[in-house]
């Protein structure tokens, strides 16, 4: 479960995230949408432990990300919007690296790695150094790495960037399966079709504030008030 309680993030005098509160229960797929610079990535980075909130609390399965970071992060997997990898490691070595960081036993890592390599179809180049990878290859390895330790919470920022249609399909199906298995998924995306298809609930953020929070039913009702298009809802809420 993910819980944000009155979370604010300021950079000097600029407020990037302004008093956000929301809960993502186990098994829910939450979509986080907003225009560029709205505060999506900042919110996600606070949840992943890369930023500290200026005010408020972020709890992952009841553990505060700031006060008990190791416990909170042990449940979490984070997939950043830009998949930077250690360029001198191969994809396989990177997967082992991530598995080790989550304190997995060697045999468990080896087994899981073979699974994700097959699932994401990365076997052809997983033994090349990541410095030679394209954007899409890096993204697939990063998502694969996020699944190695079987997280209970998945925080994912723009997962479909750089992926070809086949990879998008694989990732989409994987995320759906994880949600069905009870994983809380918090995903930011610019892709409205993806959000509509995958998310149980969506939140819209604009200028650091949540301007809409609701289920697919609420979203459908809002769409009907306009011209029935999700795009119009997005533009209306973020204008």
């Amino acid at each position, binding site marked *: 479960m993910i819980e944000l309680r009155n979370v604010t993030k300021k950079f000097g005098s600029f407020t990037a995230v302004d008093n956000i509160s929301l809960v993502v229960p186990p098994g829910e797929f939450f979509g986080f949408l907003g225009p560029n610079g709205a505060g999506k990535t900042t919110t996600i980075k606070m949840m992943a432990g*890369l930023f500290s909130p200026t005010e408020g609390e972020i709890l992952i399965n009841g553990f505060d990300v700031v006060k008990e970071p190791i416990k909170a992060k042990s449940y979490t997997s984070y997939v950043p919007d830009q998949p930077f990898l*250690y360029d001198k*490691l191969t994809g396989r070595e990177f997967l082992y690296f991530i*598995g080790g*960081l989550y304190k997995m036993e060697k045999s468990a890592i080896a087994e899981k790695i073979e699974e994700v390599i097959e699932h994401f179809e990365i076997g052809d180049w997983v033994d090349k*150094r990541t410095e030679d990878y394209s954007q899409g290859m890096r993204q697939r390895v990063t998502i694969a790495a996020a699944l190695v330790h079987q997280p209970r919470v998945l925080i994912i920022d723009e997962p479909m960037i750089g992926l070809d249609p086949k990879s998008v399909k694989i990732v989409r199906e994987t995320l759906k399966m994880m949600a069905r298995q009870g994983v809380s998924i918090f995903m930011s995306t610019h892709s409205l079709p993806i959000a509509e298809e995958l998310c149980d609930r969506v939140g819209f953020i604009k200028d650091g504030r949540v301007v809409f929070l609701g289920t697919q039913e609420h979203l459908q009702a809002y769409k009907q008030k306009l011209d029935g298009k999700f795009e119009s809802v997005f533009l209306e809420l973020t204008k």
Partner: protein
Amino acid sequence: MGIFFHILKYKFLSFIKSTFDRRLVTAVRGFGSLAVFGAFSIAAYLLAYAVTKSVIEQTRIGLFVYHRFISMMLFVLFVSVNMGNIIVSYSTLYKSSEVGYLFTKPVSFTQIFVLKFLDNFLYSSATFFLMVFMALLGYGAYFGYSALTFLAVMFFVLLPYLFLSACVAVLILMSLMKVASRWGFRKVMSGLAILYIAMVALFFRYSNPIELVEYGQRLNLDTSASMMGLDSGILANLPNAWVSNVLFYIARGNSALAFIHGARLFLLTAAMFGVVLYVAHRFYYKSWLVTFEFQARSNTVQSGKRMKVFDFRRTSSLRPQMEVLLKKEYFQFFRESSQWIHLALMIVLVGVFAVSVGNLNLKLRVTEIQTVGYLILYAFGGFLSCSLALRFLFPAISIEGKSFWTQLSAPLDLKKPYLIKFTIGFFIVLTLALLVAVFSNAPFVRMSERRPILMYFGVYSAFWVSLTLVSLNLGLGGYFANFKEKNPIRIASSQGATLTFLMSLVYLMTLVSIVIIPLTEYFQSLFQFLPFDISTIVAPATTLYMLSAALSAFALVVGLRSLQRDF
């Protein structure tokens, strides 16, 4: 040429904007840099003046022999700048994304080469210029240099000398790329390393000013005029000899001869730069393509049944987090050629220095000479450790790069990766520092009929100096971390690195000032056959330990806290 100056203009503007932005943190860092640069500049000036005065007036070895010592130091400077430039130039000329970008624009390969060559030379030599200029100022102040003489020597002698070293480095690098494409990178690098070692060993074998002093004293020669005839033919025609001859003839008031040697150097530098441009025009782009071949050949790691020692698949007795962090450090280091080659070169340099000083024959039983000699070796040993720590520990946090998100978002106590970096760095720096301490103290132990006190002090000091320099560089490297810069050499030449380097030098000079009085008393007691009161060194040793421990703790805490900043 228009495009060339156009690009230079924007590089300059970009540099000015990034250096002088209006944020408070930048202003504080700038002020701090200025303060440390200023303090160091004054110290370098005073040291050069004091050493020159002391050597000329007290030791009475004469102008010529003194300038032979300077020639030796200039040779070491040339080789250091040269080797450093080979390593740095490889990154700047072949790994820089700016080069790849400019190749897609209507800019000639030669112009791109010149841009990056100048970029590299100026970026990596800025601190050297300052050190050399201030030392020249102090040296020249003793001999009553005019402002014009200072400027002439700096810009028409020393600057061309450093530039010549950089030109030779780049020529060697491009030759290496051509040869390595046929014979293999490792064979060629090994050959080059052997060549450098042989060159340095031969130079020190045939150029020993101490032997010259002793020979001159045996023959009761006037140490200036008569000794000039003893100068070796080949060595007298090396660029370092020309520079020291310029200084020597200026000191003797012979401007004509100084001009001749200066002109030789200037013409040689100009000719060498011309050769560099010609070779770059013919070969730079081809050599750039060669690096891709190397990369493609080396970038596939076989994951068959046979596992190498540090293979991630191999089980380990270490806990999972420690194991993967160590293995990651290992692969990130040894798969980046500029890292391990540079380390190997520095280890060789340290080894050569240690063996050279270990064979010193110290017969002059003069307190001041032995004290100065010991302090020079002590300071130089510290300087070697300082360079090592700066080059490898300062960038240690920064080279995690943007991939550091993996560790920050994992259930990992950040003390673990920090401790790993500290332990590995401390082990390497301490080992080399102890090697230098043992070899540089050995001649003094021999001279003092095997009294080990200086050896004990040397080892004790090596431990604390290594601890402090490693802590300072790792800690401040974390504070000044730049996760966007991938090149560790550029990180080690950044403003933060320069500040750290200068702080390290201030620390070393403080140690020298702590040690000077008890050391003088020791040599005095030795040469006058008086008993030496051991309590004389208790206070300095305690001060050394307290200062080192305090600095180390402060720097390590600063570094650890910096890991918790927003990423």
